[in-house]
């Protein structure tokens, strides 16, 4: 059933506040009568710490892979879960990501390899900063790409149109458009109702512009989320989220999407990928990376299942600041490298395919003779999602300084 945005606004306004009590943004939204259906949602996921893309999307068809990684290489597919899960006869998924294989087969998951930031830095901090600002090499960019990605002229919008999961506001979502940091939807309120009203007027009147701006956004969102907090949430379609903060974040994003509260972009991160030491355990398919990936894959699979048909409106994109050295190091791990992989999931994705040109792993093909070379700029991927999924064509202001080398066709036009 397709509900128009207008109907939702009216219903929500009545249900939550009664006629005449609707908050400012809602009255404005109703008056403006925005046309069209429910919002498209772009969910960005950051794997902090530089995930080892060569062990996530395994180039088992490249013989050099096993020369470079004698101890930690994931074996070529043999139909078991002790080896890579075949994708296309050349690449395979780490077996811990097996829950994503059905989504890949259904055509809703696309993978891009040898993708990343063209900036050469191997500093986590800088590389994350560049990727999140969307301006590799430019430290001065004050705001984040996902904030700028919000369509500029969409009229009145929800106070929860942009949500960063966690107490800190993600760098990707900082900027001129209102964005919210939420660690737990149910706690998102001042527990003393009288105190809540008072703080709202106190901060509203304050001349401390940074604080009063944040407070205004906060209280508008608090009101909107009140209804949602009263209903207990259970995942749909038998989806089972694993334990952990990342799964929690995805579940809350699913909850916001299903509640139709006007969210357009969301950001979640997951850490622990900096596997210098003991990346693999007793065998290459065990150990730290395998454990992290199992949780990562199960979380994403549960998210897709929970949303069911709503995935038609949703695109999830994953990224990590840089890849890791093509060669294993002396500690059954890998050090900071260059190009990596990305994933895009969603109803509109032309999946079931690994995109990008494979640069090869021979000594002279490696970046600085040590890392996977870059053949796709991460902004090629993100800009396509921004333009075709969110419907924001102004790529030059989302990714300033980016010339654009064309879309890769991840989304059907």
């Amino acid at each position, binding site marked *: 059933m397709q509900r128009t945005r207008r109907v939702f606004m009216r219903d929500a306004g009545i249900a939550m506040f009664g006629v005449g009590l609707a908050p400012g943004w809602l009255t404005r939204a109703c008056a403006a009568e925005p046309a069209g259906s429910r919002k498209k949602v772009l969910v960005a996921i950051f794997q902090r710490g530089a995930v080892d893309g060569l062990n996530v999307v395994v180039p088992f068809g490249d013989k050099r892979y096993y020369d470079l990684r004698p101890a930690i290489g994931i074996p070529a597919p043999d139909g078991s879960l002790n080896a890579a899960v075949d994708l296309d006869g050349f690449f395979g998924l780490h077996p811990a990501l097996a829950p994503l294989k059905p989504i890949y087969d259904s055509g809703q998951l696309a993978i891009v390899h040898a993708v990343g930031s063209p900036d*050469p830095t191997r*500093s*986590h*901090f*800088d590389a994350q900063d560049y990727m999140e600002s969307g301006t590799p090499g*430019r*430290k*001065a*960019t*004050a*705001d984040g790409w996902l904030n*700028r990605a919000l369509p500029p002229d969409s009229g009145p919008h929800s106070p929860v149109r942009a949500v*960063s999961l966690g*107490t*800190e*506001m993600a760098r990707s979502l900082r900027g*001129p458009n209102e964005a*919210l*940091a*939420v*660690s737990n939807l149910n*706690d*998102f309120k*001042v*527990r*003393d109702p*009288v*105190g*809540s009203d*008072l*703080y709202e007027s*106190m*901060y509203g*009147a*304050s*001349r*401390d*512009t*940074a*604080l*009063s*701006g*944040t*407070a205004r*956004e*906060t209280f508008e*969102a608090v009101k909107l989320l009140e209804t949602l907090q009263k209903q207990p949430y259970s995942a749909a379609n038998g989806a089972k989220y694993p334990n952990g903060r990342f799964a929690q974040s995805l579940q809350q994003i699913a909850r916001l999407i299903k509640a139709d509260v006007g969210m357009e972009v969301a950001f979640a991160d997951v*850490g*622990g990928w*900096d596997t*210098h*030491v003991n990346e693999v355990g007793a065998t290459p398919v065990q150990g730290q990376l395998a454990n992290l990936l199992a949780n990562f894959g199960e979380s994403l699979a549960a998210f897709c299942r929970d949303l069911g048909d709503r995935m038609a409106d949703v695109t999830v994109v994953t990224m990590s600041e840089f890849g890791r050295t093509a060669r294993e*190091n*002396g*500690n059954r791990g890998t*050090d*900071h490298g260059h190009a990596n992989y990305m994933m895009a999931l969603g109803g509109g994705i032309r999946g079931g395919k690994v995109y990008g040109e494979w640069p090869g792993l021979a000594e002279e093909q490696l970046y*600085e003779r040590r890392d996977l070379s870059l053949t796709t700029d991460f902004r090629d991927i993100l800009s396509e999602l921004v333009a075709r999924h969110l419907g924001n064509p102004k790529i030059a*202001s989302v990714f*300033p300084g980016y010339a654009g080398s064309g879309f890769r066709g991840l989304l059907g036009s």
Partner: protein
Amino acid sequence: MRKLLAWTIRWSVLAALVLASSPASFGAAKTSPTALDYSAFGRKLSKEEQILQAVNRLTFGPRPGDVEEIRKLGVKKWIDLQLHPERILENPALAGKLEPLESLRLTQADAARNYPNPQMIRAIVAGREPMPEDPVTRAAVQSVLHRVRVKRDMPESDPLDPVTPLEDLLSRDQIRALRNGTLDEKRAVLAAIPENKVDDVVIALPPGLRFQLMPAASAALRRKLMLMNAPQQLISYDLTEGKLLRAILSNRQLEQELVDFWYNHFNVFLDKGADRFLVPSYEREAIRPRVLAHFRDLLEATALSPAMLFYLDNWQSVAPNTQRGGKGKQVRGLNENYARELMELHTLGVDGGYTQKDVTEVARCFTGWTIRAPRDGGGFFFNERVHDKGEKVVLGVTIAAGGGKEDGERVLDILANHPSTARFISRKLAERFVADDPPPELVARMAKTFHDTHGDIRAVLKTAFTSKEFFSQGAYRAKMKSPFEMIVSAVRATGADVDFAFPLGNRLTQLGEPLYRKLEPTGYSNLGSEWTTSASLLARMNFALDLVQNRVPGVKVNASAYEADTAGVARQILFRDASPETQAALEKAVADQREKNPNQAARPGWIAGLVLGSPDFQRR
């Protein structure tokens, strides 16, 4: 339009950086023409403002009486005293409060041996280690083992020690009082338990009740309850407790500020493997004694510390192609993690002028800087056998072949004396103590002091604290409090009695700053702008109202100390008048309440809570 304006102001500081570094500003980087204006740093403060500025920057916020004391002593003298903590008589209450926190005093080896940690549990499961002797530790380890075995579907190899049921240890009335009694009733029951039965009671209590009883328990009993409930968290408990108590109670406030600053500068993540028991000695022996020393000494202490060697993996870094002794013929190699963060975060700064080649060369210099048996809490050890003896070139300086441990020391010399380090450290200190975007001239003067004194931290800080910029309108109340500063300053302002501080640590997590748990080597930010988020703001407001209504366990505020008039309460908390807007909101709060409940006076504690949660209190 209003939104655009608000945004422009909010981001003007960052926009200023855009302009400063690239004249061809682009796209979204809108900016106001005043963005580059440091003129507010030329406008002076009144005498009274100077006192508040000093006390808000060099301490975790004034306690009742502090402002008068500084006025009496004179601001300059007081600052000088804070710069020499050894001349300040320490608060006699502090030592007593720290006394039960045993793990903070243990050597790393004893901490590793005496506190259950995942490694120890694994060793006991595998039968490599015996069960601990102490009854509560033993019971705690057994209950963890039980959970592990159930989870892994393993048989119980040896039967659990029998648990005496609570009913056999306490009367029904006593048990009822523990469950549903008042705080005083609970206290009385706990205090009446004979000494030889305490351990049995701790073991017999259900886990939920153990947590509920903490506010009623003595410090020693509380640790037993904590040990039984979460044995692997006891060191974290002690660390959190110790850090909060020092920040709240110590008279050597600047020293505590600096311990927080330098710990975050040389951050180590508590939950990484052996760092779970290496952190207490790291903070105690490497950081705390050197917060006002020469930078070179502090740098070396961190470089030699097992906690840092473990956190940034240097302990495993060896010369390429070194053969490992023992059975596994594994080839180990260079690990660049420490070398990179050493230059990027500890010394030169990311723009300090080093290359990937320098990172590799520095990593080679530090090969062999390792830990003897890290899982058992061993100390630093230079392993000559795995050291790369070849020639290295670091930042253009040749380090001759054939060296040993001194190769690493040489690198520390080069880095500590590098002009980029002087600038980077000076700017970071200015960001913490002066303003998020400190005037470049001030940073340059601090860097000059750094250079002239070979990195004397005390001298660099003195340059900052005696500068005109420090006592200027540009710096006055310009910093947003970090969550740690907010919570500690609230407890200090209310003069709250702190029985135990761990619940404050849980609140800190909600505000976004779980102590000792910043995973990234950057540490927590010194920039106020990092802490202005919706989630954090709501958590601050909730904390403020809970604190004064005594809903934070372990902390007691005397709410009756607050006068009935709002202006007076505001002055008691802020040590100055509230802004007119905040004052008006407080008056409206009282008027509204009077209208609704004419017979009931406004709760003074509640008004104090509103002040603690106000925009005025979020700045320092």
